[in-house]
């Protein structure tokens, strides 16, 4: 087979880092980021908020799900620089005054995880799902949570936890 990519490409020198401000879990966090720094890497590596997980890093698993201006998104496919000024909510920002968020409590009540790696993404995604208000049935919960993969297969308990929290909201 012919070899692909035989032409060397010129290297672009690293541009100056850009100053941005993210409002993360209610607190203003000034940051200096390169254009290619993802929101996920900014949260984990620059702000030490390691609750948000890096799974596939390609938008396929949902482990990196956070809320930006109230909407759930994949932080691995988001460049931090494009979100200058945005409000970001991560798993660390859900509990209030030592009380777990109803979804966090529901995940415990229903044993909705095994290894726990996908759980922060599952919970942030479910917060977004409830805010959207489009899921009324179990089928709709399943469909609208399909962007969050759980390789331990805790799906039935995850759905039950979300149902419980929906009932409370």
């Amino acid at each position, binding site marked *: 087979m012919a070899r*692909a990519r035989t032409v060397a490409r010129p290297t*672009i*020198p690293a*541009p100056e880092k850009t100053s941005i401000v993210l409002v993360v879990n209610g607190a203003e966090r000034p940051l200096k980021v390169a*254009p290619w720094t993802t929101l996920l890497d900014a949260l984990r590596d620059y702000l030490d908020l390691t609750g948000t997980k890096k799974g596939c890093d390609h938008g396929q698993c*949902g482990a990196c799900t956070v809320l930006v201006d109230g909407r759930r998104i994949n932080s691995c496919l*988001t460049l931090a620089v494009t979100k200058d000024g945005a409000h970001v909510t991560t798993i660390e920002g859900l509990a209030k005054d030592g009380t777990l968020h109803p979804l966090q409590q529901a995940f415990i009540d229903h044993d909705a995880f095994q290894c726990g790696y996908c759980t922060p993404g599952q919970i942030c995604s479910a917060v*977004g*799902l409830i805010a959207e208000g489009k899921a009324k*049935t179990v089928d709709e919960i399943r469909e609208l949570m399909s962007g969050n993969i759980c390789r331990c297969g805790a799906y039935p308990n995850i759905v039950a936890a979300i149902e419980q929290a929906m009932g409370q909201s």
Partner: protein
Amino acid sequence: MINFEYARASDVADAVRQIAGDPGAKFIAGGTNLIDLMKEDVERPSRLIDISRLPLNKVEETADGGVRIGALVPNSDLAYHPLIEQRYPMLGSAILAGASQQLRNMASTGGNLLQRTRCYYFYDTATPCNKREPGSGCSAINGLNRMHAILGTSEACIATHPSDMCVALAALDAKVQVIGPAGERTISFADFHRLPWDTPQRDTNLEPNELITAVELPAQGFRTNYTYLKIRDRLSYAFALVSVAAALELEGARIKEARVALGGVAHKPWRDALAEGALRGQEANPANFRRAAHMLLRDAKGFAHNTFKIDLARRAIVRALTQAARGTPQSQSNKKIR
């Protein structure tokens, strides 16, 4: 990801000016496909021009009874917009059949049109691919081609267009509004995406220095007799093996107008004027649906692993037309196909 520069466009004119000044630059809006391709080293822009804050985010009625969708309207907002839910439910259904809610919250209308094939070889920079590296060869033709095209293929490329939304837009006869250094122009949806021919590196007829500003829908929305039926390897969050957007306008049992667009089978959403014409004036019944399906697939050609798609598409077309005629569109949450 390679190093690149970043700049924000202050308005539409500034965006067009900036892209004209740097042939290696690309626009970024939602970034769901572009960032992924940059991580895979398939896309290597010298600069990203951020258009995500431009005021192209409205869904509004047009003077001729249609709807104009700003290029930056997120896929999720579009699917749930009252004008779309009430007047173009096939479009909303197709959008909700694709990706995940997180991705739909990020992805823009214009970006959905410009997303690139998910052919494994296009993504794998260690293998030849004419779309990624013109002239290097096609690894899919004699490789793993289960997901690949059965219609309109060329010796250079058998990739498919991955969008669900675009299949519905094709069926609805949408128009794409673009702006470039020479001013604005409108491209009909049928002319927007290209077949691969010997230039598979070009997915669309959009010029590299042009920006999509809006997608316009004509007044006819087929709100009663429509469906979007998507067949895939798992029930959710997977690209189509075959999908069908089917819309009918009925007068009693007779078909006054018919639209059938196929996804997952070609380099662009596939429509066939002959097959749609043959349905017009006929009774909406299984025999006529089978005849239309046969016509749509008359030139279909399978490869080593995807010949099954020809039968699958034929049945999916008949099923979709049946759902449309009955007025029982496919649910995108309860996946039982009736």
